C-alpha cells in the first residue's frame, strides 16, 4: 500500500504502526513510554503526529498505517504539541541532569533537548499527598509515597520526582515477572507509582531483578550496590558508590580484583556507541586495568566450577523419580538452578516449599568470591582481609546475593565485597575520560583467567543447562560427544522443554529439562509441575526474560523503538559464536579447573568443595 509522510510517498507492506514506518524511512519520532516488549501504553503522548482527516493528533506508537494515509510528523502543530507535552513533564520534574545517573541515556532529557524545550514555561506544582478527593480514601501515605525517595530497598531505589508515570515498570513487574509489587496509586494530578498499600519497596516481595530499572526511561528507578562498608550511611546514590569504589582502587593497602560476568563483554561496548552484541572482551579487560584494578579475572572460570558442582549434584538426584507429591506438598527430585539471585529471592519469599530442590551450588559470583579469598589469597600470600573483590555484572540482584545471609564462607569478611552493574562501570569510565572504543585489547590475568565456552554461555537463557548437559552427558556416556551444541534449548522463548537422550534417569528414561526465563514463565512451570501435567529432572530459571543478556544491570538503549529483547538476542548470538570458536568448550576440560580441584578443592561435591562452593537457603518473609 502507499502512504504519504511529510509530503513524500512511501510503499509499506504488512501491519505496521506509524512509529515503525517512520523509523524505517529515517524519521525518528520521539517517544517515552513505548517499548516493543511491553505492549501499548500510550501514556506519554509525546509521539503524536498529524493524520489527515483526523480532528486530533494521533499517537504514532499505536496507530496502524492504512492505505492512502497522509501523515505529517513535523508541522508546527505537531512540534508545538510535542514541545508542550515535554514542557509539562519538565515542569514538575526534579531536573538535576548534571548529577543524574541517566544523564547520557535519559529518554526525557534527549527528547526535551531535541525539542529545545523551555523547562520553565509552566509553574511547577508540589505533589499533594492529601489531595484525595470525591470519596476516594485518603492516601495511606507512608514514607514512600508521593514525592519521597524510596530507599527502603537496598538495591532498587525509586525517585518519584523523576518519574514520568509512563507505566513501563508497573507493566514489566506485573506481566513479565508476575511479581506485581509496583502499581499506579492515586488519581488525577496525584497519581504516582507506588507500592501496595503505600508501602516501601523494601517491605514487599520485590526480587530486585531490576527489570523495572532497565525499562525506566528516566532515573526514577536506579540500581544501588549497597556495599557493606557503606551500610547505614546516607549512601545509595550512584555518585557516592562510584566514589567509594574509586577510593578503594586508589588505596595502596587494598588488593582490588574484579571478575567479569559472561554477558558483560558482549554488552559493555554499547554504552560507548559500539553496535549491540559487539564482543568487547579485550577492551573491557583493558579499561578495568586502566581504572586501577590490581587483577582482572574472568567469571566464566567460576561458571565452570558451578557446572562441575551442580552437574555432580544432578547426577546424584537422577537415581530417583521426579514428580510433585500432593500429600507432602514437596517436589521430588527436580533440581532447580541456583545461579540467578533474583530467582532465589523469589523462591525464598514466594515458594519456600521449593527450597530443598534448589541446587546448593553457589552461583559463579559467590564461587569466585570464596576462591578468591582462600585459594587465590594463599597463592598470592595476601591476607584475605586486604583483598577487595568486585564483580562486574549485568544484574542488580547480584548485589543482594553478595549480602545474602549465610552466603560467605567465613564470618570475618565478605566473599564478594561489591557488585557493580555494566551501567555503573560505564559511568566510571566516562568519569575517568577513557575513550573506550580506542582501547587496545588486553588479556585476563592469571591464575583465574582461563575459562571454557560452557562457562561463557551462562549469560543467556539455556546456557547453564547446555553447559551442564555437556559435562553430564560425557560423564554418563564415558565418551566424548562430537557435537556439544544443544540447539533445542537455545533461543529466547520463555519456556523451552527438551528430552535429553544422552542422559537417563535410574529408570532408563531420557531426562526432561525445562529452560525458563522471566518469572511469569517460572510460575507457569511450577504450576505445571504441581498439577502433575509435567515433570522435569532439571529446571533452569533466569529471572530476566532472555537471561542475563537482558539483565537489569545492562546498558540502556535509546533506540527510537525500544526493544530490549532485540539487543539481548544480538548479545546472545555473539556469545554462542564465541563459544563455537573456543577450543575449550567443556567445563571439565578446563585445565585451571582441574588444577584447582587437584591442588586445593579435592573432589566435586567433596568436603572442601561443600564448605566453599555450596550454600543453604532459608525462607524469607514476604512483607515487613
Amino acid at each position: 500500500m502507499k502512504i504519504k509522510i511529510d509530503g513524500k510517498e512511501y510503499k509499506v507492506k504488512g501491519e505496521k504502526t506509524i512509529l515503525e514506518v517512520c523509523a524505517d524511512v529515517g524519521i525518528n519520532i520521539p517517544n517515552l513510554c513505548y517499548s516493543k516488549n511491553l505492549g501499548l501504553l500510550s501514556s506519554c503522548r509525546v509521539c503524536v503526529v498529524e493524520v489527515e482527516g483526523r480532528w486530533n493528533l494521533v499517537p504514532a506508537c499505536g496507530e496502524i498505517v492504512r492505505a492512502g494515509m497522509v501523515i505529517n510528523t513535523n508541522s508546527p502543530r505537531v512540534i508545538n504539541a510535542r514541545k508542550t507535552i515535554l514542557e509539562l513533564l519538565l515542569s514538575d520534574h526534579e531536573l538535576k541532569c548534571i548529577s543524574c545517573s541517566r544523564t547520557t541515556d535519559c529518554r526525557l532529557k534527549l527528547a526535551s533537548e531535541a525539542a529545545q524545550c523551555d523547562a520553565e514555561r509552566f509553574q511547577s506544582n508540589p505533589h499533594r499527598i492529601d489531595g484525595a478527593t470525591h470519596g476516594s480514601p485518603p492516601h495511606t501515605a507512608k514514607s514512600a509515597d508521593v514525592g519521597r525517595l524510596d530507599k527502603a530497598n537496598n538495591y532498587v531505589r525509586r525517585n518519584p520526582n523523576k518519574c514520568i508515570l509512563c507505566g513501563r515498570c508497573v507493566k514489566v513487574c506485573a506481566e513479565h515477572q508476575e511479581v506485581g509489587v509496583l502499581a499506579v496509586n492515586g488519581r488525577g494530578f496525584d497519581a504516582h507509582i507506588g507500592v501496595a498499600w503505600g508501602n516501601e519497596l523494601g517491605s514487599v516481595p520485590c526480587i530486585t531483578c531490576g527489570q523495572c530499572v532497565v525499562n525506566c526511561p528516566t532515573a526514577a528507578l536506579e540500581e544501588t550496590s549497597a556495599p557493606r562498608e557503606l551500610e547505614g550511611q546516607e549512601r545509595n546514590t550512584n555518585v557516592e558508590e562510584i566514589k567509594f569504589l574509586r577510593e578503594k582502587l586508589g588505596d595502596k593497602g587494598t588488593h582490588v580484583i574484579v571478575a567479569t560476568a559472561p554477558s558483560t563483554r558482549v554488552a559493555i561496548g554499547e554504552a560507548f556507541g559500539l553496535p549491540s552484541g559487539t564482543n568487547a572482551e579485550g577492551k573491557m579487560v583493558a579499561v578495568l586495568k586502566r581504572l586501577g584494578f590490581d587483577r582482572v579475572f574472568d567469571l566464566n572460570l567460576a561458571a565452570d566450577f558451578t557446572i562441575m558442582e551442580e552437574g555432580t549434584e544432578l547426577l546424584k538426584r537422577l537415581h530417583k523419580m521426579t514428580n510433585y507429591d500432593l500429600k507432602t506438598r514437596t517436589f521430588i527430585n527436580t533440581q532447580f538452578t541456583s545461579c540467578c539471585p533474583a530467582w532465589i529471592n523469589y523462591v525464598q519469599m514466594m515458594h519456600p516449599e521449593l527450597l530443598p530442590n534448589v541446587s546448593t551450588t553457589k552461583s559463579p559470583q559467590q564461587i569466585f568470591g570464596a576462591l578468591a579469598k582462600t585459594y587465590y589469597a594463599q597463592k598470592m600470600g595476601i591476607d584475605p582481609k586486604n583483598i577487595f573483590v568486585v564483580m562486574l555484572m549485568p544484574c542488580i540482584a547480584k548485589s543482594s546475593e553478595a549480602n545474602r545471609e549465610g552466603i560467605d564462607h567465613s564470618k570475618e569478611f565478605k566473599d564478594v565485597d561489591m557488585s557493580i552493574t555494566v551501567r555503573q562501570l560505564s559511568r566510571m569510565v566516562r568519569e575517568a575520560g577513557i575513550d573506550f572504543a580506542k582501547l587496545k585489547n588486553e588479556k585476563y590475568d592469571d591464575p583465574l583467567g582461563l575459562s571454557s565456552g560452557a562457562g561463557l554461555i551462562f549469560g543467556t537463557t539455556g546456557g547453564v543447562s547446555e553447559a551442564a548437559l555437556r559435562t553430564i552427558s560425557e560423564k554418563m556416556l564415558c565418551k566424548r560427544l562430537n557435537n556439544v551444541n544443544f540447539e533445542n534449548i537455545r533461543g529466547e522463548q520463555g519456556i523451552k522443554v527438551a528430552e535429553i537422550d544422552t542422559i537417563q534417569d535410574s529408570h532408563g528414561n531420557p531426562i526432561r529439562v525445562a529452560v525458563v526465563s522471566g518469572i511469569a514463565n517460572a510460575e507457569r512451570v511450577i504450576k505445571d509441575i504441581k498439577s502433575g501435567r509435567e515433570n522435569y529432572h532439571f529446571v533452569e530459571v533466569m529471572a530476566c526474560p532472555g537471561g542475563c543478556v537482558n539483565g537489569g544491570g545492562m546498558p540502556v538503549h535509546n533506540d527510537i523503538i525500544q526493544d530490549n529483547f532485540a539487543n539481548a538476542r544480538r548479545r546472545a548470538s555473539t556469545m554462542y559464536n564465541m563459544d563455537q570458536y573456543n577450543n575449550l568448550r567443556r567445563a571439565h576440560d578446563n585445565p585451571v579447573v582441574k588444577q584447582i580441584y587437584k591442588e586445593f578443592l579435592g573432589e566435586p561435591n567433596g568436603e572442601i568443595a561443600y564448605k566453599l562452593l555450596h550454600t543453604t537457603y532459608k525462607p524469607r518473609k514476604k512483607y515487613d
Partner: protein
Amino acid sequence: MNKKKLEQIKEQYKPIIEEKRAKWQEEHDTPFYTRQTRLVLRNVEIIEPTSVHEYIATDGYFGFAKALTMQPQEIIDIVKESGMRGRGGAGFSTGKKWQFVHDAQSETKYIVCNADEGDPGAFMDRAILENDPYSVLESMTIAGYALGAQKGYIYCRAEYPQAVKNCKAAIIAARKNRLLGDNLFGTNFSFNIELRLGAGAFVCGEETALIASIEGKRGEPRPRPPFPAVSGLYGKPTLINNVETLSAIPMIIFEGAERWNKIGSPNNAGTKVFALAGNITNGGLIEVPMGITIKEIIYEIGGGYAEGSKVKAVQAGGPSGGCIPASMFDLPIDFDSLQSVGSILGSGGLVVMCDKVCMIDVAKFFIKFSVDESCGKCVPCRIGNIKLLNILEKITSGRGEESDLCELEKLSKTIIETSLCGLGQSSPNPVLSTLTHFREEYLDHIHNRRCGAGICRELTTYEINEKCIMCTACIKVCPVDAITGELKKPHYLSKEKCIKCNKCVPICPVDAIVRV
C-alpha cells in the same frame, strides 16, 4: 412468562396505573411539567419502581415480546430508523453501534449499561434507575437478543444506594418471573444481568475505563481502536450504552421508530432529560424535545430567573461543557448546536448563572474537577489541567498578564488534541468557552485587577455603605476586629485588617456590607 401472561397482567394492573397517572397529572398541573415531553421519564413517580406487574401494565416487556418475533437485523433497523443518538455524552448513533456489535463474530458478547453518572449536578440516570429499573433491564434483554449476547452488566456508581437497591430488587423479580434467565418466553434465548458497583471515579464512566473496572483492574482508559464493539469486556464484543439511551429502546421497539424520530430536530431525534439548576425559579429534572431553545427552557419551564438577579450565562455539559452567554439564548439545544458554540450536550446538566457569578471562577471550578478526576495516565490531562488551573489562579489573584490568555488557549488546544480519552479531550472546554464568550471579564481581572462579580477574594475589598443602621452585628462576628464603631455610631471597616473571610456579609440585616 409469555405474551399471553403479559396481556393478562396488563389487563389486571392497567386500572391501577391509569388512576395513578391521572392523580400524578392532577398534582403536577404546572407549566414546569405540562411543557415537558415525558417519554423516558414516563413512569417516574407513577409506577411502583420494583413492581414488575406495574411495569408490564405500562406496556413493559411488550417490546421484548415483539422483538422475539423479529429477526435481529429488523430490530437493529428500527433502532437505526429511530435516529437515537447515545445519551452518554458523545451522541454516537445507537443503531450503528448495535450494528457493529451485531456484526462482530463471537460466541460470547456482552451488553453493558453505563450508570456511572459522575458529572457534578447530573442525576437523570439515577432518576431512571431508581424509578423505572425494568425499562433498562428490558432494553438490555432486547439488545442481548438482537446482538447475540448472553450476559449483561449494569455498572452503577455506589453513591446511588437507592438505585442500587431497586436495580437489585428488579433483577431478582425479573428472574423470578422468567424475564431474565434461560429460555426466555420458551425460546432458546437466554440472558442474565449482573449489577456491578463503581468506586466513584468520574473517569470510570469512560467506556474502556469502565470495562477495566468491571474486569477488576485500575479504572484507566486505554487507546481505541479496538473499540469495545470489537474487543470490549474480557476481550469480547461489547455494547455499552447509557441508562437514558437504553430506557427509551423498549418503547421504540414496541411502538415503532416514529415514536422517537417524529419528536426533536433534524439529526437530533427524540427527547433529552436535563438537570436544570442554578439561578432559576423552578429547577429539577426536565424532559424536553431536542431542539428546544434555551429561552424556552428558562422562561416557559423554569419560570424565569430567580428574583432580583440578572442572568449571564448557562453552563451546559458539566466539566466537559461550556458556558453559553445570555445573548445566545435563542440557540436550540441539541448535540450539534451546542458543539458549534464550544459547549456540549454532555449528559445534560444545565446551570443558569447570574451576574453574581464570576466566569473565571466557574472555569476554575470545572478545571479543578478535572485535575482531581483525571485518571492520571496521560501527560496532557494529568499535568496540563493543573497548569491551566495555575494560570486561572494567577489571574483571579490579580497577578494575571494578557499573555496568560494566549497561553491558556495554546495549552487548552494541546490538551484537547493529544489526550487519550474523552475526559482530557474535553476538560479545557470550560476555559475556552469562557475565554470566547466572556473575554472582557478576563481582561477586567487582568488590567483593572477587578472581579465584577465580587467573587475573587484577592481582587475584592469590603466596604460599608450608607445603608448601615449601626447595629454592631458585624463588629461582633469579625474575627480580626477590622470593623470598629459603637451602637448607633458610624461603623468603619479597615481594608488593611480585613482578611476577607466574608463572615460579616450574611450577618448584616440590611446588606450594607458590599464587596467591590
